[in-house]
């Protein structure tokens, strides 16, 4: 038998690669079908720990280096911060007054008081290792209350925008599918004209988002720079969170609807911190600047 193999007869090693390819197909079927997510969750829980460890070491090293470099500026920053704290204390008093006034006016207008949205702050600890998928790993997982399909938002330059949704969760980490991934779809509407459509990515950070299923008639009213927000019609994303601004309107000849290209509202390549929105509280999103600056690792109740 061994001699036969040596002479070019049947060699078990030859069938191993095709068998493995078939097994890979089976795994893809499994993970995109009924048992979707089970193997992934188990693996993520294990590998997420390693990933967080690596990220923590990297952050510790770079943090130490920058700490030593920044020691000189510490005193100046302290003085500056003390001044800011004083200013914020004044702002807080002003905010409390405005809030009370707002509540009174809401009451007069007969609005019911909204619920609360729970924001779970998270830090991006890793990205896709092989440039093949666009997801990124965050340091909060199912143990912190993160669940699959929870919407993810972030704040940049005072704008609250959609980042994506939670694709998979491990015990202490989760994978976020970003807005520019072609597998993500968000029910959207044009903020000014209120026409609805379906926004999705085109697979790359450099490529614009695309808003589909807006009729050509409606597209005629669209202007460059118009803001597109979540419509709240799907069960995942709350309404009125920024998605992007209109860059270009494309009118395909043999299609009844227009394709509207969008620039994302957030610079998704610069994200470091983000917030997972706990939709279980069933509230529209209303966040404050305080929520945006909260340190990761804790949760915060934000009043509507």
């Amino acid at each position, binding site marked *: 038998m061994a001699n036969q193999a040596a002479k070019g007869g049947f060699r078990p*090693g030859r069938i191993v690669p095709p068998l493995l390819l078939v097994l890979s197909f089976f795994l893809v079927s499994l993970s995109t079908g009924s048992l979707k997510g089970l193997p992934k969750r188990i693996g993520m829980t294990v590998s*997420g720990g390693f990933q967080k460890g690596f990220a923590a070491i990297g952050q510790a090293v770079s943090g130490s280096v920058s700490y030593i470099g920044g020691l000189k500026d510490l005193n100046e920053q302290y003085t500056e911060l003390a001044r800011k704290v004083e200013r914020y204390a004044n702002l807080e008093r002003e905010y409390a007054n405005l809030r009370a006034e707002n509540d009174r006016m809401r009451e007069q207008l007969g609005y019911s008081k909204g619920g609360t949205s729970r924001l779970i702050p998270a830090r991006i600890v890793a990205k896709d290792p092989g440039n093949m998928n666009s997801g990124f790993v965050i340091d909060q997982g199912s143990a912190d209350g993160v669940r699959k399909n929870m919407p993810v938002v972030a704040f940049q330059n005072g704008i609250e925008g959609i980042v994506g949704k939670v694709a998979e969760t491990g015990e202490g980490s989760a994978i976020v599918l970003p807005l520019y991934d072609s597998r993500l779809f968000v029910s959207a509407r044009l903020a000014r004209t209120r026409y609805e459509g379906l926004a999705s990515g085109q697979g790359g950070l450099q490529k614009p988002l695309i808003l589909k299923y807006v009729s050509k008639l409606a597209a005629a009213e669209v202007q460059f720079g118009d803001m597109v927000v979540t419509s709240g019609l799907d069960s995942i994303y709350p309404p009125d969170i920024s998605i992007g601004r209109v860059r270009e309107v494309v009118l395909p000849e043999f299609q009844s609807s227009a394709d509207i290209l969008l620039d994302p509202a957030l610079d998704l390549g610069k994200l470091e911190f983000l917030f997972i929105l706990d939709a279980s509280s069933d509230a529209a999103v209303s966040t404050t600047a305080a929520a945006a600056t909260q340190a990761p690792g804790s949760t915060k109740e934000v009043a509507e």
Partner: protein
Amino acid sequence: MIGSILATWVLAFLALLLQSTWLQTVAIAGVVPDLALLVILWVSYGNSRAEGPIAAFLAGVAFDFLSSGPVGFGPFIYTLAAWVASLLHGSIRMDRIALPLVMGFVGTLLKVLGSGILEVLFGPDKVTARSFADFGVWIEAGLNALLAPLLFLALGSMKRWLITEEHRR
């Protein structure tokens, strides 16, 4: 055989962790080199037709746990590249520069081709493939090609763990 597969898997897993964390800070246009792929290609070339693809399959599973793709995606693209590399075993002689360069470049393209096959079979809503028209693909292919000679040289010093005794002779 098992020792070689395990050692390759550990090395590839470490490479994947590096790629997803530290190397992201030096990414060129958001693209990082795929060191795990290079490890797999080298081991597949150096061994017979079984060890490399098995290690590639296992490294692919680890890849999927670190990324947003479905489980099976990583095993498929890495096993495909490993299989082709293992076919070169004994037919083309390894040199210091040219073959590593070609293997790094072509291996990346095979990875992209594999993702395309899966996208066609399972649909774009399940599997995301990268297009050859994507400039990032060529950046990655270039990075992998440039790094392959260096990495292969370094891997040569670990031959006793990565290559089976039968093939070291």
